[in-house]
């Protein structure tokens, strides 16, 4: 057990931190900086920023050089995330799916030809990805995906509907989970297709969410032709591959999430120090002080849990089922954190946007926090997985994937 960083890692840390300092978007972090407001503004802003990162070679630090990556270590990747967060640099946004979900899945299961074709274009920002997982009737029961892909000569013909697809209307490609065999148990008939989002028959529609904004799309597929060569890996192995995607969502990015929350926590502490209640700052008020300290402890523990996940990947080559424990921990933690933050907004939380406390950011954070315990496997699903796969308790219910399907 040694949590210290090596001299090489520390040198890399200095290199990346200097680069970030010198390359942040002009004015970023100053009070004068005009933050992008609408989703479209955020897209445009993040495209420029992520392009700059990509050009400097920071997009795929731990990806092999053959696929356009830097070819160094997972630790360097983590250090990059840490320094980005420490500098409060703009978060990876438009390229998030490509780098964190689609890329690693293609790397794990794609053919050499597919890796060479797709991975470099993720890293150089020439192609944006989205992911087609959830459907209206495949939420908790993800294996119930109904979007059909039927082979017709050298093409699949795809029909169906996806929901909660980020970036669908700007993406070039979609990592699409669809049904290729309806005659077998539902999780056994799924495949992954790499779908050109510019194909005829694809219609993304913005989905207005709880905050009034539309960060997600619904996507309708009508007789979309997808060349057979766009099948990822083997036919009907989609469920297994999907677990890779989900596991990656809980891998190194976990520590990036952690630092993001630490930044939010620091912002909340600042608000708590300058907001008065009963003659003392809220940070010192009995109603909040213990609660804020508890939030700090919980966010730090998320870091420790992240280190254990990383160690497990370094030792075993992949994250284990404990990823579900980590997901449950942090998503429930986020809910508590956002409950605390909106409580600190107090009556200010009655108002929103420019009229709100801290510009309504805690309102948005509170509203969005429900996504954490619902999306990417709800807390109920995680508890099923933990009880059955980690603790070996009897199924008795049909909610979670069967233990024997475990990957």
């Amino acid at each position, binding site marked *: 057990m040694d949590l210290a960083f090596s001299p090489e890692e520390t040198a890399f840390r200095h290199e990346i931190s200097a680069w970030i300092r010198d390359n942040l978007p002009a004015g970023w972090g100053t009070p004068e900086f005009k933050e992008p407001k609408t989703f479209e503004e955020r897209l445009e802003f993040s495209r420029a920023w992520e392009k700059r990162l990509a050009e400097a070679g920071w997009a795929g630090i731990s990806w092999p050089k053959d696929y356009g990556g830097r070819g160094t270590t997972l630790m360097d990747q983590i250090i990059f995330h840490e320094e980005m967060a420490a500098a409060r640099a703009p978060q990876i946004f438009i390229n998030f799916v490509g780098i964190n979900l689609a890329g690693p899945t293609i790397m794990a299961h794609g053919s050499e030809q597919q890796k060479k074709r797709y991975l470099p274009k993720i890293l150089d920002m020439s192609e944006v990805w989205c992911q087609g997982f959830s459907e209206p009737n495949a939420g908790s029961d993800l294996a119930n995906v109904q979007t059909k892909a039927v082979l017709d000569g050298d093409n699949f013909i795809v029909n169906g509907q996806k929901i909660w697809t980020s970036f669908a209307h700007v993406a070039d490609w979609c990592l699409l989970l669809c049904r290729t065999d309806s005659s077998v148990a539902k999780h056994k008939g799924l495949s992954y297709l790499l779908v050109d989002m510019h194909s005829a028959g694809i219609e993304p529609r913005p989905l207005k*969410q*709880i905050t009034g904004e539309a960060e997600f799309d619904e996507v309708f597929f009508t007789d979309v032709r997808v060349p057979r060569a766009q099948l990822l890996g083997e036919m009907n192995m989609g469920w297994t591959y999907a677990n890779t995607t989900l596991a990656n969502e809980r891998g190194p990015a976990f520590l990036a999430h952690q630092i993001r929350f630490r930044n939010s926590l620091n912002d909340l502490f600042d608000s708590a120090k300058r907001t008065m209640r009963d003659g003392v700052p809220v940070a010192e008020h009995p*109603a*909040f002080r213990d609660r804020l300290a508890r939030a700090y402890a919980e966010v730090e523990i998320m870091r420790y849990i992240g280190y254990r996940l990383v160690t497990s990947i370094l030792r075993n080559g992949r994250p284990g089922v404990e990823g579900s424990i980590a997901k449950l921990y942090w998503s429930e933690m986020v809910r508590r954190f956002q409950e605390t933050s909106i409580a600190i907004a107090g009556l200010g939380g*009655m108002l929103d946007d420019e009229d709100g406390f801290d510009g309504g950011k805690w309102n948005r954070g509170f509203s969005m926090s429900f996504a954490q315990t619902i999306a990417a496997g709800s807390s109920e699903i995680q508890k099923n997985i933990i009880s059955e796969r980690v603790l070996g308790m009897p199924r008795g219910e049909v909610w979670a994937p069967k233990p024997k399907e475990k990957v």
Partner: protein
Amino acid sequence: MDFDFSADQYGLRDEARRFLEKQCPVSHVREFLDDKAGWSRDLWKQMADLGWMALPFPEQYGGLGQSFLDLVLLLGELGRSLAPVPFLSSVAMAGQVILAHGSEEQRARLLPGIASGDRIAALAVSEQPQGFGGTSIDMHPTQDGDTWHLNGEKKYVLDAPAADLFVVAACVGDQNRWFVVEEGARVTPQTTYDPTRGAGSVSFDDAVADPLEAPFLFPGLQLATAAVCAEMIGAAEKILDMTVEYSKQREQFGRPIGSFQAIKHKCAEMATELEAARAAAYYACWAVASGAEDAALSSHIAKSYCSDQLAHLAGEGVQGHGGIAFTWEHDMHLYLKRIKTAQVFLGDGPYHRERIARIVGL
């Protein structure tokens, strides 16, 4: 010992529910979501025709001579339907404060308009995002002969954009009391987290302010607090109903999700929180309406419990719905925001528990 409503009171509730389901479906509520200053004047007029605003006021002030207790279930129905009208503010809060604290002259002057629905009153207490009542009120009226003037700004005033007159908490010496401002208040409508209702800041620039006769915030503030709880109960009941109903319809893994213990037990816990909140809110309503010895204590108990437990219930309602509750089209988020806003309005959980601690001598 009779801790339940009368047949007449349940009759009014049923009538109100039928009326609101017809005249105030959520589609009607949604017409006003994007309008900071908007509210349903149509619905208001129909409610006035039904005599709802007149209900709790004595006949000599244009009322129907019923009591605050007759409002309780009606407020619940307004919460359940998210009715975009300033009933809570005008009739159940400001109107009750005037009734409880006003002189004969003040009541006779102010209440008939409120009871007919022609005038709308709002309660203005807070100035700061944190803290409530007591020393958090820092507006000090000035006296010029017999005339008082107010200066400064009140914030987080519910229904301010709809209001014609304001009942304002201000501090004279070391005593907070109520003042009525009929003219000269400048309202800035603001964007609300709960988009179904309006709120804003209200500023006074030497506005003439008429002090209500009884020189305390209590019992008026207790009545207003109990009324907020009564409204919250209706919204919370609807959340539970929606969650149970959805769980019966929504199938995953080939079964209604309401057949899974994870969902069933969540709903059972919500039902238990709701029943406790109901008992607390109704008890407080009875206690403040009848001037019981524990009126103040019970209003703090009710609001502290409703604030924190019903907010928890609302969150569980969202979780019970899953992704669908996360869409703007689904109504769940409107109820979530309604409850979250009510949670902090007129004092949050910690505020009311500190009051409890003081009353019980901790």
